[in-house]
């Protein structure tokens, strides 16, 4: 079981979707129960991964990935595609986030979805598998399959169960993201053929491509970087490719927004960390390129916060706040040092937790009143005190109050940015002030004061199910805020390895080094010959 746990985690939601297909669509109750059982099951089944990974967190493996499944090229050998899964610290955290948020979103849609319930849950579970696959895939073909597989369910979720402008938003989301994916595909293919030129082997296997990609000469690599960049930047979203986000979030159903913000946006940053940085280290560490990336991130932080400030729709406000928060994440990534990267990944997790909670919060009011206009509310604390308390906690988490999760990530990123170039941190710091401004102002307009709108007088406080959707998020927020040490330890190895790769290759045409592990003594590394496609050698304590 241990050696296949990734596949089990990956396909549980898909199995759930298949099971649901056989349930008659009139039986809404059964559908909801089955869907929730499978999503909760998916989460519970991912829990054994925690102690298993924890035990191996400092292990060194040749590919630096653990829990390897499959070998390269074992799926479609003629083109070199393999069903190859594996995780490291970064993807491990993201996978746990995905299974948790997947369960919470499905739980939160219990009363929100009344039409076409069966299709809704089926697509949601398919989406869940797609997301997990993206994080686990160690083969580019597989990765791309899952990447694209996420688009269709999301499109349908927005387009069928969304708000007034759902079609516009869904199509915009789909086409915009697809544009990026297609450019990324071009990049992938180039890498694929380049690998063949260097080694004579056709393969999509990512650890293999890590070895040859840094050899690409700078003037070509920069175009590849741009191709991948566009794909990921649209997904993150970075300024100025972000405008699909407000529409998609506003029009999507609550659970769709939660999963969109919580997980899908992380695909972009994951892509940067997993692909752009190790594949094109010379490009990324070039001062001009780095400045552009940092510049766009800083603009995203401040601009996103400013636009958030003046929104009249609660959901749009939270959507733009995502742009601002993910600006911090990309800032951390492109500082190219271990603090920035660690902080970035940690902040991605934090953003998933706190912004996921923010969208749930907005959804709670929306489900009761079917409006998201801030002006329609006021004095909600008086009628929904528990809800007000939970909202305050998550708002504080989002604005980075110490002892909650947001601060740990933000601060680590700021330290990384500062040590790279103090001006970057100086420009990012006002983002924290603006975050407090727009969140507290929102809180004041919605919760404080007296109940101004008579329609709000009869609102009922949170139901136990709704409370249950928040509890795991609050627990995680507090845990990461008070005791983040385990998370730092989990991230240490992959982050250091990436930084090392960049450092070794930061001069163009530097010979690619064998992947160097940090301070613990490195294992004997598999020698790469022209015909060896990649081995499944694992460290001594890794799964068999």
């Amino acid at each position, binding site marked *: 079981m241990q050696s296949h746990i990734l596949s089990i985690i990956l396909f549980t939601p898909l199995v759930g979707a298949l099971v649901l297909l056989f349930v008659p669509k009139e039986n809404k109750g059964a559908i909801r129960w089955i869907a929730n059982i499978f999503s909760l099951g998916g989460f519970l089944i991912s829990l054994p991964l925690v102690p298993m990974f924890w035990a191996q967190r400092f292990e060194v493996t040749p590919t630096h990935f653990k829990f390897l499944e499959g070998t390269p090229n074992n799926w479609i050998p003629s083109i070199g595609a393999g069903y190859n899964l594996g995780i490291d610290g970064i993807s491990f955290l993201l996978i746990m986030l995905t299974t948790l948020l997947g369960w919470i979103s499905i739980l939160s849609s219990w009363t929100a979805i009344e039409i076409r319930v069966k299709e809704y849950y089926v697509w949601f579970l398919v989406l869940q598998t797609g997301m997990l696959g993206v994080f686990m895939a160690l083969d580019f073909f597989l990765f791309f399959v899952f990447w694209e597989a996420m688009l269709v369910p999301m499109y349908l979720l927005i387009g069928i169960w969304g708000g007034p402008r759902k079609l516009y938003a869904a199509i*915009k989301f789909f*086409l*915009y993201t697809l544009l990026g994916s297609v450019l990324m595909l071009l990049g992938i293919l180039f890498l694929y053929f380049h690998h063949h030129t260097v080694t004579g082997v056709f393969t999509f296997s990512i650890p293999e491509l890590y070895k040859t990609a840094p050899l690409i000469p700078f003037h070509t690599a920069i175009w590849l970087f741009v191709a991948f960049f566009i794909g990921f930047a649209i997904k993150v979203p970075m300024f*100025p490719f*972000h*405008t*699909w986000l407000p529409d998609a979030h506003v029009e999507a159903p609550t659970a769709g927004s939660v999963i969109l913000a919580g997980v899908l946006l992380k695909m972009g940053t994951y892509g940067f960390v997993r692909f752009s940085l190790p594949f094109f280290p010379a490009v990324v560490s070039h001062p001009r390129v780095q400045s552009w990336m940092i510049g766009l991130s800083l603009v995203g932080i401040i*601009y996103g916060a*400013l*636009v*958030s*400030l*003046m929104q009249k729709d609660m959901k749009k406000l939270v959507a733009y706040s995502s742009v601002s928060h993910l600006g911090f994440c990309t800032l951390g990534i492109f500082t190219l*040092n*271990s*603090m920035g990267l*660690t902080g970035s990944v940690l902040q991605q997790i934090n953003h998933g937790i706190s912004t996921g909670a923010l969208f749930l919060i907005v959804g709670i009011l929306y489900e009761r009143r079917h409006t998201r206009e801030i002006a329609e509310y006021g004095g909600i*604390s*008086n009628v929904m005190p528990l809800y007000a*308390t939970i909202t305050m906690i998550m708002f*504080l988490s989002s604005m980075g*109050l*110490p*002892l909650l999760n947001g*601060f*740990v990530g933000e*601060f*680590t990123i*700021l*330290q*990384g940015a*500062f*040590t790279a170039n*103090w001006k970057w*941190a*100086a420009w990012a*710091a006002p983002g*924290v*002030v603006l975050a*407090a*401004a727009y969140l*507290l102002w929102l809180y*004041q307009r919605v*919760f*404080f*004061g*007296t109940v101004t709108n008579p329609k709000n007088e009869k609102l009922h406080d949170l139901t136990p199910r709704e409370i249950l959707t928040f509890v795991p998020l609050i627990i995680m927020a507090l845990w990461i805020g*008070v*005791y*983040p*040490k385990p998370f*730092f*330890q989990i*991230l*240490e*190895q992959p*982050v*250091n390895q990436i930084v090392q790769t960049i450092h070794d290759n930061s001069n163009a045409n530097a010979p690619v080094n064998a992947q160097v592990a*940090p*301070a613990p003594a490195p294992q004997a590394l598999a020698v790469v010959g022209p015909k060896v496609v990649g081995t499944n050698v694992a460290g001594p304590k890794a799964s068999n």
Partner: protein
Amino acid sequence: MFFLNHIWLIPLFPAFGAAMMFFFGRRLQKATVNAVCVGAVVFAFLFACFTVVEYTHFAHGTGHPFEKIVYTWLGSGDAHLSFLKKDGTTAQFNADAGFLLDPLSSIWLLFVTGVGMLIHIYSVGYMAHEGGYYRFFGYMNLFMFSMLTLILANNYMLLFVGWEGVGLCSYLLIGFYFHRKSASDAANKAFIVNRIGDAGFILGALTLSWYLGSFRFTDINTLARSGHFAIGDPVLTAAALLLFVGACGKSAQLPLYVWLPDAMEGPTPVSALIHAATMVTAGVYMVARSNAVFVLAPTAMKTVAIIGALTAVFAASIGLVQNDIKRVLAYSTVSQLGYMFLALGVGAFAAGVFHVFTHAFFKALLFLGSGSVIHAMSGEQDMRNMGNLRGRIPTTFKTMFIATLAIAGIPPLAGFFSKDEILWQAWRSADGGFPYLWLIGFGTALMTAFYMARLIFLTFYGQPRMSHEVEHHIHESPKSMTGPLVVLAICSVCAGWLGVPASLGGTNAFGKFLEPVFAREVAASVAPAEPQEPAGEEHRGLEWTLMLLSVGAAVVGGGWAYGHYANAGKDYPEPIAVKAPPLYTVLYNKWFVDEAYDYAFTGRRKIGKIRLGAMGAGEASSWFDAKIIDGAVNDVGWVTRAVATLSTWWDKWIIDGVGVNGPAILARMISYPARLFEWGLVQWYALVMVAGLLGFGVYYVWK
């Protein structure tokens, strides 16, 4: 060493109280809430006392700090997450949950828990009839937790936890009466303005860690005092200035003071605890804690001193004409905080801390007393509607009177010793270049005496100016409220005696206790100011002269106030309004600073049609985002659709029309004439065949 080793328990007592309130507060009786929350603080105070006693035994007067690290908070606990310092070496990323006790934090620990305890007891009486009882005490306990974390932290990051924590509690407590928009506005203002300071603080802490490699105070102090860094080091100066920005936010100095007067929207015990005695002193604490860095940055020190002095006089000027009793006290707090920073800035760290100490007592007393007055006046806060209360609420009157004497600096009360120490140090510091700071401080002392006396006379003397129903209800506050007042009054009298300077025959035990904290083991570089040097004989005379001047100023100020306000009747005139009406308007409107900020920084007010500030930038950015960027995206869509329409037209009419249907039409057109030959007559066909045959035959014959 039991107490020292469990020093981390001290913040946890009130944290426990807050947690209890969070989970169970709704269902608890008031008595239980009292037992838990007030008890937690009492417990913390007792524990703190024992801890400090143990510490004095531990340190034996050396001032050696006691440090206890509980666990690694930020960082992976081993050496593999690192960052590059400025000089290129790597340093480990680490911020622990660690606690430090030295003379500086001992003092803070004692008065924070002590005054906190008294205020909690006071609140039992004050909040007895208010709603949200458990919520109030929960927040107050959370505040105590944060404040204690702040002062006991051993590194900048844990300090920051407490720093933001007190900011949060301030927000929650200022906005306690959240039904009022003015309260929630004030809460937002407090938090956001504080956040601006926090951004500066973070950058300062990052600068220090980048330059020196650690966040821990002990590490930084060791490095800073090692003589390795030159005086005026630019990076340290930058760090010090950034830290000071944080202090300006938290301790309400120019230009980030604007939140403190508005913070009076909160219940009075909140104003007493947070905005007088404890939270606002956090900035002073932090600067004092960082003294090793500041000492190496004379430019920063000068800035601190100048801003402190300017704040002192600026706030005092506004306090001269305010009518809300709590507002006067708020501006007075800002002004007194200015004094503290003035002291720190001229290098008189111990004097600044001493003033924090004494100020905590008499300012808390003043606020609690004003709360008692407001309680007696059924909620009235405007002094124009008070008067002649001294016989009706005697305990309140007497204690407030004592506090006023203290704050004005009348010997032998506490304020005299601390304030005069500051003024003296301001005069003699730095090659005689700071007398102008003394002058500002002196002017402020004069104004302080005036407005405080004005407060006393308008409230307790003169004609009764309140309505009849209010007058009927005037009653002294319950024991739970007057008890703390008396205790604080005693402290206001006696606290100063801990720091009697040598010139007056005292031992200055306070200063001696703090000496190791501010010591400079700097080998070669000598700091320009050496304020701890005992004064020689020739200085004594100067010191006494200055003392007499400041006492005289206090008396004069008090006397002027007496003359104008002691018999104030229904529509008493304001002397400044009479003599200089424009000045009065400016002062009354707080120099229009809030309005200026609203125009320039927040953007809440428009200039004509244009909105500046953050909101203006937000509006502009929203417009840009929706129209320009999204417009571009939508334009791409439009272009795509236009191209698609073009393609459709091309496909339908050209490719399909010409290419596919064309030949078909052509074929049909040709077939029209061709049909004409088909008559259906077999013989005609046969004739044509024969003709053709003949034709062929002829052709071949002719060939």
